[in-house]
């Protein structure tokens, strides 16, 4: 008997060069402009936050795999992405230990306990943020002035807060909103830098336009109808970051194009509802988590019609 020279594989015998790790790498690359921008606006402290969050996520993943006695430790870079995204939705002067807890919650609780990559129901970074907001309401809502690099920087309300509470303070100019010179979470402020990353992801076909465009358009249209300041609604809060980087998370968004549009519209409506009628000035985080729960149902009702099913 001749020895087997090669394992027998099923067709196809060609595969694209796309891998899960490569996709995660592209997402990390796409977030670099926003990270650099946040350092420019809020000082080097934000790098510490990102670092702690990423390390916490990676270690939590490792810890879980050791605890579960997985034969092989799987590392595809998704925990790094979660770590960065979590840091980007935290306030700029968040105590580092809170960021550390957040990373643990995101990976251990929200992702791994549900079965790891591909099986979690909720977006890990956003769920961790929601838990932190409920647990540390003071620290999680302390936003600061831009270009104030000191550790105990002067606090400043976010544009959405100003609009919601009608407090006596002028809104930043639209230009400042666009480039990101306004109070807010670490990575959510700069529309232009986030869009650069988003265009990169779209060009690499990592994400499709369906969720972000339907999401942002819904918010825009609702703002027009209810006579809100449209551009402040779009560029304020975390809408750009959420629409392009959070809502498009593969695992927690619908799998078909039609489903993605429904998901985007749903997110838009709930975001606007929370901002307009809810208790918080910002609703992106909760709206995406809310719509995450609908993903299985949306998937079930958007099964594509097979080829040749007309007539």
């Amino acid at each position, binding site marked *: 008997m*001749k020895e*087997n*020279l*090669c*394992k*027998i*594989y*099923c*067709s*196809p*015998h*060609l*595969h*694209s060069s*796309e*891998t*899960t790790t*490569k*996709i995660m790498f592209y997402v990390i690359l796409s977030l670099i402009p926003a990270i650099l921008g946040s350092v420019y606006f809020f000082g080097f402290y934000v790098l510490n936050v990102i670092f702690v969050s990423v390390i916490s996520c990676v270690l939590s993943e490792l810890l879980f795999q050791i605890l579960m006695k997985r034969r*092989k430790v*799987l590392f595809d870079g*998704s925990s790094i992405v979660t770590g960065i995204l979590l840091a980007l939705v935290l306030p700029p002067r968040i105590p580092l230990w809170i960021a550390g807890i957040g990373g643990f919650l995101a990976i251990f609780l929200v992702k791994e306990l549900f*079965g*790891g*990559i*591909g*099986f979690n129901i909720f977006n890990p970074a956003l769920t961790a943020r929601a838990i932190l907001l409920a647990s540390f309401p003071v620290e999680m809502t302390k936003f600061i002035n831009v270009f104030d690099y000191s550790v105990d920087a002067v606090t400043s309300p976010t544009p959405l807060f100003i609009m919601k509470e009608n407090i006596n303070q002028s809104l930043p100019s639209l230009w400042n909103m666009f480039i990101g010179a306004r109070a807010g979470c670490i990575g959510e402020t700069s529309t232009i830098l986030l869009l650069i990353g988003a265009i990169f992801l779209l060009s690499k*076909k990592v994400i*499709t336009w369906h969720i972000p465009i339907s999401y942002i358009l819904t918010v825009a249209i609702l703002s027009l109808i209810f006579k809100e300041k449209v551009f402040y609604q779009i560029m304020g809060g975390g809408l750009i970051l959420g629409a392009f980087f959070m809502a498009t998370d*593969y*695992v927690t968004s619908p*799998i*078909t*194009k039609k489903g*993605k549009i429904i998901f985007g519209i749903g997110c838009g409506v709930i975001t606007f509802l929370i901002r307009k009628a809810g208790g918080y000035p910002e609703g992106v985080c909760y709206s995406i988590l809310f719509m995450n729960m609908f993903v299985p149902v949306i*998937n079930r009702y958007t*099964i*594509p*019609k*097979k*080829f*040749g*099913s*007309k*007539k």
Partner: protein
Amino acid sequence: MFKGGVKLLDFKSLSKDEKIEEFKYPEKVIIPLSQHTGIPAKPVVKKGDYVIEGQVIGEIGGFISSYIHSSISGKVIDILPWNLPTNRKSLSIVIESDGEKKSIEKKQREWLKLESNEIINIVREAGIVGLGGAAFPTHVKLTIPEGKKVDFLLINGCECEPFLTCDYRVLKEFTDEVIEGIQIIAKAVNVKDVFIGIESNKIDLLPVLRNSLKNLKIFLNIEIKVLPEKYPQGSEKHLIKSILNREVPSGRLPIDVGCVVFNIQTTLAIKRAVCDGIPLTERVLTCSGLVGKPKNLKVKIGTLISEILNYCEGEVKYGRKIVTGGPMMGIQIANPDVPVLKGTTGILLLPEEKLPEDIQPCIRCGKCIEICPMFLMPSEIGRYVEHGRYDKCEYLNVFDCIECGCCAYICPAKRPLVDFIKCAKLKLRKK
């Protein structure tokens, strides 16, 4: 144009300019009795019999079956089950050459004087099956069921699988014969309008075909359609969709939308059977990939693949796999000592890919759903197969899958989606 599909690197330049070469007369051939879709042929020779090239050695086993002819002259030395390139076994007739290269008398015929049923009978007796890979008996396809009408005849020259160039070479070198074949098929199925579909990477065939159409006496409206390079353009259903914008209903055949589709080499084989009285005993295939000399070879049916690989300087060693057919739908074989069948379009030596050892989880990116040309949900079917929920796979129309491999090609987690789908089909059929 059809929705879905993928753009592939075609690797055709390796063998595109290699003229069709006649492979040496084999010393021994192994001719399986089950090379086609349907019932295996019945052997009509015994061990020790003397046969000549073109002699019937296997008789048609039913309606959906085919005759089998000897491809060389010599002695039947054994009749035994042998491995096929499809990794199954079939009763096979082993013939050893006597070196005399004798063949049956070739009867010249005028196809214009033949009736439709006469043509179909000649095709049947010549043992012609679809040479594009599926090997469906051609006489069955030519027999139009009562109540159906054929509006269009489509000639499939897409050859959308990477590496393969045999149909391209045949169309280039035997253009007149292929066009004669088209006219014969058109007469057999009584149709006037013909489309020849080629992919844009074979655009240089356009002047060749036009020239041939100008010089021959043509009784039909033949139009050449240049289609974009997209896999699986050569799938019957997608070819019809691209050329005529008709969608073959799920579970039905092209005839249900008034079309019949024939492969280039099948057309050539029909011409040779009808006009020159030559039964199907050889075919052109491409030997390419990591071989020293990629070639397009005219090979006797039953020649061992190992001999062809040797001739093309393809060294079988660790980390290389042998694939029969194209890289997207072809079958990897464990042992090269298997014979060339009527449906063997290519022999490829490919590098073993670095795929994950364990099955990775689906990250639900939805790319497979986006590109599935049958609009199925391969990722979901895969997940259900992993959990043994085959009933759910049926609900997700797993039987509509054409196993083109686009989903597994694009999958970032490199999940064996075609494996899953084949498994689901098998389990559901067994039930």
